[in-house]
């Protein structure tokens, strides 16, 4: 961010804002269309969308500050190895149903049972979760003063028993498929009612957005650009162990060619995390078009694609049709994927993962191995992860890099994940919204955003 932008924010805060801020108005955000209201933070767009309707246990600001809107008090007792979370009085979900300590307990358990790296880290730490009136007591296996930071995961949100209840600052009101979604302000929002009355999520360019994601260094004129530090990696995963190497590389080649044909929207990715930080570079040689065609021509290939990549649907379908290849693309939600995993239905899967630049490389590689190896995760990988943990404490950067390289090589050599593309994102915010902050995960914090303050 340049100096003029840094100056602009405090000036705007001191000069423009009214003592009694104006309540009302609507803000438009352009995002990918979600598949449902079930939490799915697989990509950056989703990460933003679900942060609007689900409240996080804790938020992590860019400066490292941790805060919560749900708990009036949180205290870690070293001797008892217990974190006590006291919920605020009289909280409700968006439909007015009480939001209690029991909801916190259930939400925490759901998160810990999920197949996320952050969840497994927390699960390894927690011994028990108890509820006592308006207090949730998280008992730990060992002293861990860093426990609060484990609770800042963006996937750890307050869930209701009823699917139509939301804990976030907004709740869905109208959904016009393929066009837009209207979210209304949640009158019971734990953090205090937002100034905005509505947020419109558009899925196309019909309405000029106030907030959107795009490649860095564009739209200088009317927008503030926030380098969110977020990047998205796309991987091709192979979910069965008995798949031919040629077919894997042929499919890999086709997808690389698709990116070229659509104007190289994505950057080539030659590592599992990012080219700047990885100790190893992975080179997978692509095939000639003729060889690719001959391999894929006679097989009926079903390429499953995570719904978070649904923005590729139209272009990819057109590309495959023009290539005369018999590849069927099927978009699948995270929740469906888990149900299919144990069957042989899914062989090829295109997934994406989002990362924050600041997160250490060892954490990223652990996450990839844990979350992207699916049913091929085995004892060897578990051992490698344990070794990585040990190396982390050795304080030797050299050993750490060595272990990261070993894991990367193992994953690619075993043929379970091929890295494909990477995309960096900036968050663009129209300058009429000067008070907007973004958190550590690059999500705009809309709670205190008000337009009519002049």
């Amino acid at each position, binding site marked *: 961010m340049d100096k003029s932008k840094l100056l602009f924010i405090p000036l705007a805060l001191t000069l423009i804002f009214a*003592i009694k801020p104006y309540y009302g108005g609507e803000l438009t955000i352009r995002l990918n269309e979600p598949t449902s209201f079930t939490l799915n933070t697989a990509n950056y767009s989703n990460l933003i969308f679900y942060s609007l309707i689900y409240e996080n246990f804790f938020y992590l600001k860019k400066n490292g500050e941790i805060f919560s809107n749900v708990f009036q008090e949180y205290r870690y007792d070293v001797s008892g190895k217990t974190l006590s979370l006291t919920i605020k009085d009289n909280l409700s979900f968006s439909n007015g149903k009480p939001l209690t300590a029991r909801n916190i307990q259930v939400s925490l358990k759901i998160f810990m049972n999920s197949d996320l790296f952050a969840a497994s880290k927390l699960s390894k730490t927690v011994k028990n979760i108890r509820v006592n009136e308006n207090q949730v007591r998280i008992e730990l296996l060992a002293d861990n003063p860093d426990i609060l930071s484990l609770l800042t995961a963006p996937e750890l949100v307050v869930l209701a028993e009823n699917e139509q209840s939301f804990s976030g600052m907004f709740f869905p009101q109208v959904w016009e498929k393929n066009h837009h979604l209207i979210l209304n302000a949640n009158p019971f929002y734990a953090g*205090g009612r937002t100034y905005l009355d509505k947020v419109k999520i558009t899925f196309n360019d019909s309405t000029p957005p106030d907030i959107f994601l795009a490649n860095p260094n564009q739209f200088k004129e009317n927008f503030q650009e926030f380098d969110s530090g977020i990047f998205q990696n796309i991987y091709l995963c192979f979910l069965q162990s008995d798949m031919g190497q040629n077919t894997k590389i042929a499919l890999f080649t086709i997808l690389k060619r698709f990116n070229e044909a659509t104007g190289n929207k994505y950057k080539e990715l030659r590592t599992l995390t990012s080219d700047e930080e990885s100790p190893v570079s992975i080179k997978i040689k692509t095939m000639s078009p003729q060889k690719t065609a001959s391999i894929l021509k006679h097989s009926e290939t079903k390429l499953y694609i995570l719904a978070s990549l649904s923005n590729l649907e139209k272009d990819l379908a057109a590309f495959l049709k023009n290539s005369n290849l018999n590849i069927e693309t099927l978009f699948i939600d995270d929740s469906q994927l888990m149900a299919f995993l144990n069957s042989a239905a899914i062989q090829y899967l295109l997934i994406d993962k989002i990362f924050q630049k600041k997160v250490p490389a060892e954490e990223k590689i652990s996450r990839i191995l844990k979350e992207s190896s699916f049913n091929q995760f085995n004892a060897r990988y578990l051992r490698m992860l344990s070794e990585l943990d040990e190396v982390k404490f050795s304080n030797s950067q050299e050993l750490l890099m060595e272990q990261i390289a070993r894991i990367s090589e193992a994953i690619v050599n075993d043929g379970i994940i091929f890295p494909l593309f990477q995309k960096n994102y900036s968050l663009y915010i129209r300058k009429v919204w000067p008070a907007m902050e973004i958190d550590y995960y690059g999500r705009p914090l809309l709670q205190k955003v008000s337009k009519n303050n002049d």
Partner: protein
Amino acid sequence: MKKVTCSLLLLLFLYGSSALGQESAETLVTESAAFLKIFFKNRFDVQVAIVRFENDSELTDTAMQKLYQLLISNLENEKNIRISDLLINFANGRGEFNLGRVDDLHYLLDLKLIQNKSKTGLGLTIFSRLQDKIVSIKYFEKALSKGEMDFLNAKNFAFSELGFSKLLEFESKRNLMDIQSISGSDGREQYFFYYPDEIVIYLASNMRLEKDSQFKLGWTRPVYPPLHYEGKLLLLQTNQGLVLTAGNNFSSYAKVLAFHDSQWQEIQKIDFVPFKYLILNQIPYLVGASYGEGRNYFKDKIYFMPFSDPANRSGIYEKKAAPAMALDFSVQDGQLQAFHLIDRNYNYHLFSAEFEEQFSTPEKKGASLAALGGEWLAISDYSRASDQLFFYNIQNGGQRPTYSEKITGEIQFISAGVWQNIKGFWTGVRQERDGQERFMVQFWGKRDG
């Protein structure tokens, strides 16, 4: 060093010129006042008001208001003269007066300020309403220098005898929403501090407040968490003892509590936030409005609830108004005098007792307000950059600026109140310094009471 010396000299010069200017202006007014005192000397309880005031000089409307105010305050000190302040506003070179009460007066005064090449004069005409004729005409003249003119034209109402000043300041817990007070049976003033979850009662002790007691309010669902806590407290001495009402922007109901058996007991819930106790057609009413849930403004209805029996909530009627950032009623002798409102665009509106709009400010000016009886109105500014407190004289239904003061911080609420027998206004001010937030309570009053 040279520059500093020059600045200092300049400041001294300006100060001297201003002081002289005030003196000359005062002489013109005091001579007029002296003439009136002599004219009414042998008359008892004579009821007088200025009903026309015109300006034919280069002085601004602001300066004219100062001169008017100076004359009024001079005459107010005379025991045999009962001067009524009917000025509503001074604009475009002439005063706008509330002439609805002229029938009660004995004499009407007509003032005109004129200016020739070297001097400024004040023409004074006295009209006897009972004799239905002009009984005296007098002309006073003084040389007003350029510096004097500039001084009078400056936008500053700080005539010492009119000024409100900060008489008390102390730090409070955050989110204080309102302060109300009532005289206890021992004659000591009891102060009720209204926080979102409790009310803390203090007793006045010399120049300090001593904590006496506190009680939790125990709100129940539905609760609408706000970003900014707002609430109104009202204390009433009824036949059944002391009654308190507490409403806010996060609960869907207001509580009515009565002091029985040495403790506060909830006797009723009402669906709006009471902020005034009024007598209309000899019927006592609780008057109030509803906040937008979790928001910082009142919705567009004013509720009137007959309140002879605190436990009875029947017969509520409502009047349509505009959504408001702040609103209050000014009451004189228990009767509704006017209705003051700051709308959601931060413009001030004055309504008559019949809810007819009298005027509104074209510029954004206002966030919180409170009326002190039927005499004074305090309004805070809307901008966060430099908050201000404006004091207006609202006697006889007008609204005239008389004094303003810069405030460090942001005024969160204003309430009319009493401190050390001086009537004035409580303000809750949020201040931020070095990233630390403090909530200050201030009392603003006129030292002359």
